[in-house]
């Protein structure tokens, strides 16, 4: 599980980073002093969890959640229990931690996040079995809605204000963002490996150094996305 830490206090960030380092399967990939910097990062990187301070000057943790259309799981960190009630108004918030955070409480929180992710995944599996709508995606091209099956998609590349969806048969240029399409794709099949690329995990031919080969396409792997890719490989 990849996470980022957002807190205007260096001491608070250091504490959460230390707790993450002591937790198996939890990698703190970046720390941010301001929520605005973190939003820029999240627009280009796929993250499972955010540790978010509520009380920050200018742009608060709540502003951050309201700005993100499809936020990852969020754990609020706060010095004031008063904020806890407000935090539960948002679906993305899984837990809140009162500072100073103890290792025991942190471990419980991580377990809660894992349980929440497992529940979501089970719900998605169940929905896929019951309804074949979960197998495809409609894209809007020249006022036509074209159906694409997830399994036909090789990769998706960001191109300015557009994305290029490469399938086995042809390419489709769609006016949308990589982040938006990522939110529509099943996590178990698709993975963002670079700020400009999402790949169909099942289409990988091989991986060499910092690139992935899919058909004849060589796709770069960014440093921050590499750990998640490696984690998902069934390595011998």
């Amino acid at each position, binding site marked *: 599980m990849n996470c980022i830490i957002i807190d205007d*206090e*260096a001491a608070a960030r*250091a*504490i959460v980073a*230390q707790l993450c380092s002591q937790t198996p399967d939890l990698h703190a990939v970046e720390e941010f002093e301001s929520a605005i910097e973190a939003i820029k990062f999240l627009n280009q990187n796929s993250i499972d969890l955010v540790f978010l301070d509520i009380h920050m000057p200018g742009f608060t943790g709540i502003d951050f959640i309201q700005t993100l259309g499809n936020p990852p799981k969020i754990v609020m960190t706060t*010095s004031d229990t008063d904020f806890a009630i407000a935090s539960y108004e948002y679906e993305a918030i899984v837990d809140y931690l009162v500072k100073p955070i103890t*290792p025991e409480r942190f471990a419980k929180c991580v377990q809660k996040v894992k349980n929440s992710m497992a529940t979501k995944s089970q719900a998605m599996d169940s929905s896929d079995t019951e309804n074949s709508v979960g197998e495809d995606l409609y894209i809007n091209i020249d006022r036509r809605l074209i159906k694409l099956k997830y399994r036909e998609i090789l990769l998706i590349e960001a191109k300015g204000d557009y994305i290029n969806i490469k399938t086995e048969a042809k390419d489709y240029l769609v006016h949308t963002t990589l982040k938006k399409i990522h939110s529509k794709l099943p996590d178990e099949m698709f993975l963002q490996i670079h700020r400009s690329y999402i790949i169909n995990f099942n289409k990988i031919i091989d991986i060499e150094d910092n690139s992935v080969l899919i058909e004849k396409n060589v796709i770069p792997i960014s440093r921050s996305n590499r750990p998640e890719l490696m984690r998902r490989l069934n390595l011998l």
Partner: protein
Amino acid sequence: MKESPNLKYIDQLAGGDNEFREKFIGILKEEFPLESEEYQKNMEGRLFKVASENVHKIKHKINVLGLHNTYTLAVRHENELRNGEDTLHGEFMGILQDIQSYLKTI
């Protein structure tokens, strides 16, 4: 009995990781004087709401240093400043000085 600052929480968190311990103490030594100075400046300018933000940050460090009763006072001070009252300023300044002195010893 007067509370004394301590590193029990940091040591528990470090769990023998000296690199983290040293790094964290370094952050405290760097951030605390700056936050204290900013607080004093805002109090001198009677910018109580801004000063309450400074107290908010400082109170986390107070808690980290094991000063739990002092933390309660800091919470009260922060709330009072938000309401434009500065009755606890003198006492809070004494706390800041105690912590500054302690930080010089570690």
